[in-house]
């Protein structure tokens, strides 16, 4: 199991489009991918649950990934955050 804290980069926070990109990325891996913020933890493969975190721009979310491809999954998601979810 690995854990990592990431800062939310999209301008409007993890709203529909970035949350959708997150879910698509997460869905490529077998590992369980959980995301938490302010004590609430949700399934990173569910777009509705991710939006329920209401993670606004600049806030921090914690990733908890466990499974056979956890390292690859973390790397892929970190890349997404670094790319700022391809926003303009």
């Amino acid at each position, binding site marked *: 199991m690995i854990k990592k804290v990431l800062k939310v980069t999209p301008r409007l926070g993890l709203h529909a*489009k970035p949350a*959708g990109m997150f879910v698509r990325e997460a869905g490529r891996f077998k590992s369980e991918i959980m995301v938490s913020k302010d004590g609430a933890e949700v*399934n990173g493969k569910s777009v509705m649950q991710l939006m*329920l975190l209401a993670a606004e721009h600049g806030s921090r979310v914690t990733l908890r990934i466990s499974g056979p491809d956890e390292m690859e999954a973390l790397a892929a998601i970190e890349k997404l955050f670094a790319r700022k979810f391809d926003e303009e």
Partner: protein
Amino acid sequence: MIIIKGIAASPGIAIGKAYVLEDEEIVVTRVDIPRDRLHAEVQRFKAAQKATHRDLDAAEAKVLKLLGRKHAKLIDAHRLILRDTLITHDVPKRILSEGVNAEFALSEALEAVNQQFEKLKDEFFRERRHDLFDVGKRLLAHLLRHARRSLADVKEPCILISRNLLPSDTINLQESCILGFATDLGGKTSHTAILAQSLEIPAVVGLSDVSRRVKTGDTVVLDGEQGLVIIAPTPEAVAKYEKFQQQEIEAERALEALRGLPAVTQDDKRFRLEVNLDTPEEMKSLLALQADGIGLFRTEYLYLNRTTAPTEEEQAKAYVSVVKAMAPRPVVIRTADVGGDRLSQMGIEGPKNEVNPFMGLRGVRLFLRHLDLFKTQLRAILRATVKGSVKIMIPMVSSVAEVQAVRRLLAQATSELQAEGVKVPEGVELGIMVEIPAAAVMLDAFVPHIDFVSVGTNDLIQYTLAVDRVNENVAHLYDPFHPAIIRLIQHVVATAHKAGKWVSVCGEMTSDPHAVPLLVGMDCDCLSVSPRMFLRIKQTVRRLHYATMAKLVGKAAICSDSDDIRRLMREQGL
């Protein structure tokens, strides 16, 4: 007469009879399903999912046709919801573990999520739950083999009143005879509001109980400007709004009549009125404006959202399509004003997370560090010169050395292309964007090296007044009427004209009907405006008297603050 205040979601005024749409309460009852039929129940739910996917495909095709690609992403969001584990996993799980019908399991699952959404403080996130309901209702309708409510039976023009309007309902409004709509729920950032704006349907939302206070057939006035709904308006109120409506229609007609007419003042001084272009996708609507040219073709879009730099071929194709469509009218192509963060996305070494990107490595500064990128763009632009009239503009110039470096690179690119057999003309016009105060102050040193000047007002104001517009503490200090700005632009125009060079102005100031009289009075040769304001600005120019405006600018330049300038203009009725 009752006036209810809500949230202005989409501008415009509608007067007419109300049509109250009953809230779409689909009654879902709990049915216990025998154990041996539970798997069949799950299959039934899966079939509904499939049917809903087909619905979304159809809706997507409709949105694409009506509104274009940007809005079609909304359907993508709905698809993701449909594929969400909440739907695909939780609902079948509920069916099996509780032994209930699919409708009940679905509505329980939706309600559980809704309750969580309602607790969110952030309106933007809270509004997203309407997308969930939209998908949920589509699914339920399939399960119940229930035709969704339709506005098709509304035959007379009316104002739609309802508790809530889902995005999928809104898409269908344009084909119906609905004049506008008012809802109890909703916010300014909901997809419904955004769709209404794009479809140009007046709308007021967030009225809390309008659907209970209005009856079908009541006369109502919908004021999408102020966010008001007036129930049973007095004849005076109706007359007032009818007059507004009439004025709007007349104003629209007056603007339409200006299409194709020159931007010429009352005393016969001709200005070039051009438009700004952000992506070639806008060309179709832009051509209809019959502008004198494209005064600013921003090329940044070519560098966004990608992992490799755009190739010469790809860029040339984009430029050629625009240049050809505009020919013989000129197109000013600005080389990309991108920052270092774009480079790292494209796998090129560059600065990341600059503390102050506005003053960082961007525009010509960045391209002069990455000559390969710069030359690729210059070559692509040069290749378009054979198809029409092209001028090149360089952003973020602060020193003469930068212009000289660009000149050398441009000459190199030209001779390379000529050697390759491409008939690129010599002496393609090269200009600079004057947006850094240094370039404005000492423009006389620049003019021998350039053919024209383009004033980028947004950045010039921001850098001159040292105001970050995004910083709410100082945003109010951003002021196009600041005498320093007026003097600076006046100086730029005079310096350029003295050397026989022409001046164009782009930036928001050119799209502000209150600021345009000053730009006209300063004798700017060309104004490049946003397409949305094109006809409006043409109307402004055609109403002005150049000689009077020139005198006004003389007075404005010696004012000590912007309030004095605004007062001066008010006295002239501007």
